[in-house]
């Protein structure tokens, strides 16, 4: 028992005990604990196993940068992997367990991989799996010489993934729900430490709408863990000000990314701090929310993260940052150990050493700097802290817990720091204070590169002109007073300049229509304050202030890698513990010529773990600089990308799940179809009837019956999903004439025409019909699939290319519902609905005729005699609300004629029999000629695509052309997607492909449509094979004219 709760400390409630489980064992923590502080208080030291080497790992920090205590929580469908114990709030019943270990983190049999460590160095994967894999057993080397590495990877992947990796995710569906939300504000403040709280309070008091987000569950940042009584009362005052000024506060919320035009992405953890049952009871509360926030200005008061140093076995459980130990003591009332060694290179560890000593620990402090300030010496002495200057730690000793450290001493006269081994010190915890790294990740998201500051030995914000200000420790201002005063000063100035530019409406982005010029002024980039704001202090002339800003008596001694003099100590010194990247890996990368820091990162995977190198990046860059004889500025830094900390996929997905993944479109006849036995299928966003089975019928039997009924009697099909566009105006005829390949200007009123549109490049965009209702009034139909694309295209043409044309284009797809009435008795059926049957006779409604009539019931209809099935057929459109009535009336008549309802399956049969193309054929690669529609190309006019359609490559007669396909053996079936090959050469792309198939009751066997080089004439009397390599099928077929039924088209004209 070394760690201990200390009475009178912390913000936890000692009277409120909380039971939780760790690896199946029931433990007790306190209200206000994190999982990490509770585990520490219970003396749990080994909390996980490392990524590659399975080394035991414990707590390394007290925050989001945690690289050691990565655990799993929950179970079953709520199993959550890779949770940082340091940010998980403790709640009653929390289940947590170690991961990446078997049988447990304390006894992990995979630790043997630590012994194989030299095989897992930098570039292990590249070297092993990209080159020839001679080392593999023969059966795994089946690949031809190229790609052998890939084969080797596929062979070994399973084994490696099990050995190296992190926690396992639940494979069960996620029972929680998630939300997405939007918010707006004048000022977004990220981080509620001293700087953030002061900036938010001051700006809000001056009238700004301020949103303050804090990833922790408590506001205060450093004020929560400093242990300074004055800070506690200061925090109370700030919280009061925040509340009174109306600052909107979001706790447990991480600003995970900054984006263009003042957008921030927030990840709010709504229920992760509660027992599952409570959130389930609440039911409508989501687990997480993903917020899109738009603001005029952003303050980054994101603080700084303490670095470690690289010495041998610096990852042993019991080694953590000094700041973390301070947090555990002052915020969570846990003294991390009885016997403590503090190793530092700057002043910030001194307070920690003192506080631990006051709390009863035996403390030894090793400072790498040559001298220790007099005042500090007195204070240390008064509390009995032993200390030594020009000293550091060479090596940590211990396995599952640190037991002692080997001290290293340097000769202060020597310019080159090398450390000679000195005595060893017994300890139960080693606290490392290697300097502070400002959190500049969010700035990096905006493309602003941090700049290395030698004086403060850290990266500071680079210059920029974006509406972002970095305050406090994030701006490398480490002195408390300067943090608070600087933040207040900035917020006051910002508010003042904001008040001056009155053109900026306070709630600009709340949806009000602003005046154009005012808007331009208000765009974040044009904010006057942005130009003046220079948050970076990295100029030479401001360097003078840097030491003051540090708040330290003495400069930091930049110490990253601790190099022992003489023989190495043999242990591993980690720069990125989460990805098990060592100093040796970085040095190897340097020796192998990885000069760019971005290349080194990818080669070694430094900083590529879930923590994105929060603790290790600077260390790695410093090691690389030393290895290549460059300065840190010369090496540069890698780019941080969103998210700052992991974001659940559920939050990014929000409610777009299952049926809500995309919109569902239903026709007005949807319910009617269902009540008449329809089985529906998805056609794009639409739900369309697939087939209407009678009891005991299979899908195929149904489709056969339906298509046969249409050819024999009459059938009804809901065709509402076809795109419908009203094209109106004096120039409508001219407009359509330019768009369609055939002549639409000559279309007479009361007639319809089949039409095809090309793209600019001469390939087919879509086909459909065009009805001329009046001189200036056309009704255009498109395919279901291309309806939206055609609408956008026509709008582009009319607005952008030909603004001179007086034409209006409106989508009326939702306004009109349609039923296709097809079959030899369709006219008879239609006549039943009319007062006067002659309204639809052959004279009044001839082939391709259009009429607008009222039925006997007074229902206004648009009817065109057009056919997709090849039979005598009509399309009837009514206003959408009347659609169920219309189809009901039609169905009464059809039923009396032994007619049927038919769905997409039968529709497909009918069109394949006739060789009519759909989206399966018009796939964006075919010309008019390819699709057998050459006659649709007007010779007397130009139209969109006509020029480029004449290119040699598109007019080659040997291009794949539309053909019909029939099996040689009438009993055979074949699949859409098959490749058409010559019998002698079944390989590669073959001679063509099959686009659609159908069982044809009319012909008594299966048929298909497809494309074959040169068309069916080129293959007369020559058999092909429909090869389906995926399903391993080969069927002998012949290619024929695509018009397989009623090639002369007599039926539809009768």
């Amino acid at each position: 028992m070394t760690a201990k709760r200390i009475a009178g400390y912390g913000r936890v409630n000692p009277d409120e005990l909380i039971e939780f489980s760790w690896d199946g064992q029931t433990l007790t923590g306190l209200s206000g604990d994190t999982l990490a502080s509770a585990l520490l208080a219970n003396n749990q030291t080994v909390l996980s196993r490392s990524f590659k080497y399975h080394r035991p790992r414990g707590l390394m920090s007290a925050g989001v940068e945690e690289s050691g205590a990565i655990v799993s929580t929950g179970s079953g469908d709520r199993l959550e992997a890779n949770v940082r114990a340091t940010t998980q709030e403790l709640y009653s019943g929390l289940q947590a367990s170690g991961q990446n270990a078997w049988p447990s983190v304390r006894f992990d049999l995979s630790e043997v991989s630590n012994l194989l460590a030299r095989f897992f160095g930098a570039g292990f994967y590249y070297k092993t799996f990209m080159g020839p894999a001679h080392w593999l057993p023969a059966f795994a080397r089946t690949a031809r010489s190229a790609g052998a590495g890939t084969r080797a990877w596929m062979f070994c992947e399973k084994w490696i993934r099990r050995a190296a990796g992190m926690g396992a995710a639940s494979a069960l569906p996620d029972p929680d729900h998630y939300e997405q939300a939007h918010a707006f504000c004048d000022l977004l403040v990220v981080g509620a430490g001293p700087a953030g709280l002061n900036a938010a309070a001051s700006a809000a008091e001056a009238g700004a709408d301020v949103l303050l987000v804090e990833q922790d569950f408590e506001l205060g940042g450093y004020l929560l863990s400093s242990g300074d009584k004055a800070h506690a009362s200061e925090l109370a005052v700030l919280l009061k000000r925040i509340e009174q000024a109306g600052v909107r506060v979001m706790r447990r919320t991480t600003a995970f990314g900054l984006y263009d035009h003042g957008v921030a992405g927030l990840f709010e953890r709504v229920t992760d701090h509660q027992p599952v049952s409570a959130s389930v009871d609440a039911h409508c509360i989501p687990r997480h929310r993903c917020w899109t926030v738009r603001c005029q200005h952003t303050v980054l008061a994101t603080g700084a993260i303490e670095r470690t140093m690289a010495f041998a076995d610096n990852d042993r459980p019991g080694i953590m940052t000094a700041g973390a130990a301070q947090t555990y003591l002052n915020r969570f009332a846990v003294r991390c150990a009885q016997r403590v060694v503090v190793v530092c290179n700057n002043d910030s560890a001194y307070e920690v050493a003192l506080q631990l000593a006051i709390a009863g620990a035996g403390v030894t402090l090793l400072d790498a700097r040559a001298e220790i300030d007099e005042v500090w010496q007195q204070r240390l002495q008064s509390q009995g802290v032993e200390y030594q200057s020009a000293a550091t730690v060479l090596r940590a000793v211990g396995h599952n817990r640190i037991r002692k450290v080997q001290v290293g001493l340097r000769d202060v006269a020597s310019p080159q720091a090398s450390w000679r081994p000195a005595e060893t010190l017994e300890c139960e915890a080693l606290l490392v204070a290697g300097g502070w790294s400002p959190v500049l990740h969010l700035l990096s998201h905006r493309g602003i590169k941090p700049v290395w500051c030698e004086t403060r030995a850290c990266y500071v914000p680079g210059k920029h002109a974006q509406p972002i200000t970095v305050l406090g420790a994030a701006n490398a201002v480490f002195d408390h007073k300067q943090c608070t005063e600087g933040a207040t000063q900035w917020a006051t100035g910002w508010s003042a300049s904001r008040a001056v530019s009155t053109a900026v409406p306070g709630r600009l982005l709340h949806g009000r229509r602003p005046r154009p010029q005012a808007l331009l002024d208000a765009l974040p980039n044009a904010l006057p304050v942005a130009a003046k704001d220079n948050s970076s202090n990295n100029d030479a002339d401001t360097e003078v202030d840097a030491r003051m800003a540090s708040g330290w008596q003495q400069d930091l001694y930049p110490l990253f890698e601790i190099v022992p003099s003489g023989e190495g100590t043999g242990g591993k010194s980690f720069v990125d513990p989460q990805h098990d990247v060592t100093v040796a890996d970085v040095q190897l990368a340097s020796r192998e010529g990885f000069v760019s820091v971005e290349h080194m990162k990818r080669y070694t995977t430094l900083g590529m773990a879930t923590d994105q190198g929060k603790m290790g990046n600077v260390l790695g860059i410093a090691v690389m600089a030393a290895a290549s004889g460059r300065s840190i500025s010369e090496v540069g830094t890698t780019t941080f990308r969103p998210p700052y900390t992991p974001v659940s996929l559920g939050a990014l997905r929000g409610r777009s799940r299952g049926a809500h993944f995309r919109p569902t479109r239903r026709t007005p006849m949807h319910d009617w179809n269902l009540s008449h036995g329809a089985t529906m299928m998805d056609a794009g966003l639409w739900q369309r009837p697939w087939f209407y089975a009678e009891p005991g019928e299979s899908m195929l039997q149904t489709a056969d019956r339906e298509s046969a009924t249409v050819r024999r009697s009459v059938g009804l099909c809901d065709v509402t999903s076809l795109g419908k566009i009203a094209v109106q105006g004096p120039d409508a005829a001219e407009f359509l004439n330019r768009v369609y390949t055939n002549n639409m200007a000559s279309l007479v009123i009361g007639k319809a025409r089949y039409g095809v549109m090309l793209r600019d490049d001469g390939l087919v965009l879509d086909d459909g019909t065009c009805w001329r209702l009046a001189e200036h009034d056309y009704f255009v139909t498109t395919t279901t699939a291309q309806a939206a694309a055609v609408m956008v295209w026509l709008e582009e043409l009319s607005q952008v290319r030909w603004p001179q044309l007086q034409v209006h284009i409106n989508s009326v797809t939702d306004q009109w519902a349609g039923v296709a009435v097809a079959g030899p008795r369709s006219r008879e059926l239609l006549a039943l609905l009319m007062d006067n049957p002659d309204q639809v006779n052959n004279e009044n409604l001839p082939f391709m005729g259009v009429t607008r009539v009222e039925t006997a019931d007074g229902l206004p209809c648009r009817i065109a005699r057009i056919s997709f099935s090849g039979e005598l057929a009509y399309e009837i459109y009514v206003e959408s609300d009347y659609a169920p009535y219309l189809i009901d009336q039609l169905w009464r008549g059809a039923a009396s004629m032994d007619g049927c309802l038919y769905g997409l399956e039968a529709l497909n049969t009918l069109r394949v029999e006739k060789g009519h193309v759909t989206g399966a054929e018009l796939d964006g690669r075919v010309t008019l000629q390819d699709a057998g529609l050459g006659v649709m190309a007007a010779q007397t006019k130009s139209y969109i695509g006509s020029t480029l359609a004449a290119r040699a490559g598109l007019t080659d007669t040997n291009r794949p052309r539309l053909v019909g396909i029939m099996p040689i053996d009438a009993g055979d079936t074949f699949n859409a997607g098959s490749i058409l090959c010559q019998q002698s050469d079944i390989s590669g792309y073959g001679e063509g492909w099959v686009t659609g198939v159908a069982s044809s009751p009319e012909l008594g066997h299966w048929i298909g449509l497809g494309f074959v080089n040169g068309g069916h004439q080129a293959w007369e009397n020559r058999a092909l094979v429909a090869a389906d390599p995926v399903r391993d099928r080969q069927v002998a077929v012949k290619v024929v004219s695509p018009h397989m039924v009623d090639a002369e088209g007599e039926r539809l004209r009768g």
Partner: protein
Amino acid sequence: MILIECPFCGVRDHAEFRYGGDGSIHYPALDADLEHWHDALYLRENIDGMQLETWHHVFGCRQWLLVERDTVSHEISSVKPANNDIGVILDSALTDAGGGTFSSSVGSSPVGSGDASGSSHVPDNKKE
């Protein structure tokens, strides 16, 4: 996450819009020769800086817009209706409010095409 100020609808998230393409292209007449069409369709600048492009306000007014956007910073310096005639109407409507800048001072919109063959009744002032 960029914001586009639609002249008709106000400031909107780009998710409401659909990107069109290069707004500086002068599409040739429909009967222009293959070379002109080839160049208009396939030759594009790869601009590092301010670029004229077309956007369509799909989930809004359905108007096509001409947007000047910096391809590096995403800064948008102007948004106008692609149909300059509409810009002129907007401008005159906004005279009271200090005037608008939605129309080009000379000629018609920068984007447009030549005339189609056989449609001489249509005014065409942008022939290449």
